[in-house]
């Protein structure tokens, strides 16, 4: 049997075989490299609390505000937290961006939401996009800091109790 014969004989297994290989690779990366179970082609969507991973950049105890243009790096780090992803985010941040001295990046809109009296007002605030915009803090150029990724460790059914754990951190000096 020639190459064409073998190809024809086993062609039906080509796509299923590839899918299974990607799945095995995803399981390995989830188990050993902290890849989010939702990603990597393993059909793990809607299966774990991994979706609520959050990456923070901080400087001297204050959280750094990350603009939307850097969200792709932030999300990349949350999905696969490692030094390479963190370095990409840091390179984009270093020297060119500024941090929020107040340390609560979204405090303005949410404090407003918390002060609103009833559900209709909340919905009004939610659907009226400008309400969610903020930036009233003083900004200072960022030189050094720490990048961390936090994930939900446990969630207790019926009580609402959440515990978080740090799954990655890397320190960047000011030099």
């Amino acid at each position: 049997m020639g190459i064409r014969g073998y190809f024809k004989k086993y062609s039906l297994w080509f796509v299923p075989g590839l899918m299974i290989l990607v799945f095995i690779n995803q399981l390995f990366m989830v188990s050993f490299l902290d890849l989010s179970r939702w990603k990597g082609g393993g059909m793990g969507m809607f299966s774990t609390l991994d979706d609520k991973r959050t990456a923070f950049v901080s400087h001297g105890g204050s959280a750094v505000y990350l603009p939307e243009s850097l969200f792709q790096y932030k999300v990349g780090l949350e999905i696969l937290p490692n030094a390479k992803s963190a370095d990409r985010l840091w390179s984009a941040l270093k020297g060119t961006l500024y941090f929020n001295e107040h340390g609560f990046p979204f405090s303005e809109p949410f404090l407003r939401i918390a002060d609103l009296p009833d559900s209709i007002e909340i919905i009004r605030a939610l659907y009226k996009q400008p309400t969610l915009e903020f930036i009233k803090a003083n900004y200072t150029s960022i030189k050094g800091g720490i990048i961390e990724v936090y994930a939900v460790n446990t969630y207790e059914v019926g009580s609402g109790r959440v515990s978080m754990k740090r799954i990655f951190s890397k320190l960047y000096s000011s030099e």
Partner: protein
Amino acid sequence: MQFVADIRKNIAETIYQIDRVTVIAQVTLFMFVVFGPSFWFTVPIYQGALLLSLVFPKVVKTSYLWIVITTVTALALFSEWHSVDNHKWLMLYWGLAFVVATVVSRGDTDALHVFLKKNAWFMLIFIMGLSVVQKILGGAYLSGAFFEFTLLTDQRFFIITHYLGGLPAKDFFLNAEMFLQYPRAEFTLFLTQRVTLIAFVMTYALLLIEILIPVFLLIQKKSYQNFAHLLNGLFIAVVYLIAPVYAFGFLLAVLGIACLSSDSRKLFLMYILLMLVIFLYKVPWFSLYYYFTIGV
């Protein structure tokens, strides 16, 4: 009334007479146009291919078209492969299935249809089966923790949590805020008993459907296969009404159509209607409702 019935009959007859492989290919290309990776080099190729398939339907049976589609999709997904959504992986696999099918069948339409049918059948089993496996391995699903937590924190589920679960909107957004603040080791989310109940029902209803679809597909009897398709239709209609991952819903409908025999006319029509329903789901109904009721 007779006039309406005649029109309905004519439309149905026209749809059934279209070559099944051509329909599968055209809805696949439409899916790439609407839901495929959006890069400067992918969009014009997907659009061009769809146009070509509509003007010259025979082109969908040539491997060159599918090699181009699959190559540009692979290139688009390559750099960010680990963060790519699962439905985009599946689109790539489905494109590859077309490549292999067109190469192997060498112009034989029946062989092409059989090949696509078998691949779609496997992919449906794979998608549902593996999502069950991942839910079990993940450790947070079977207890109901996943859905309860998601209902309380994921903005996509706000409507259910607020209107059915009875959680005040303010509490819902305060829950979301807790994850944006610099992390604390522990905190407690606002919760209602009704949300816990809804989460429990959603957890096991979804799991049951995801188990039954691959099980029935594996049984090689037509009645079981048909029931699996009905469940798949139910899954698309209900799940994507709640979770706005429309591309995934559309893909399940495309695979469903590809998986059918040529004589399964009602199921074929069901999937076509579901594809239209997905676009109805995409309309921002609640934004419109709020616009007309409270003026935002």
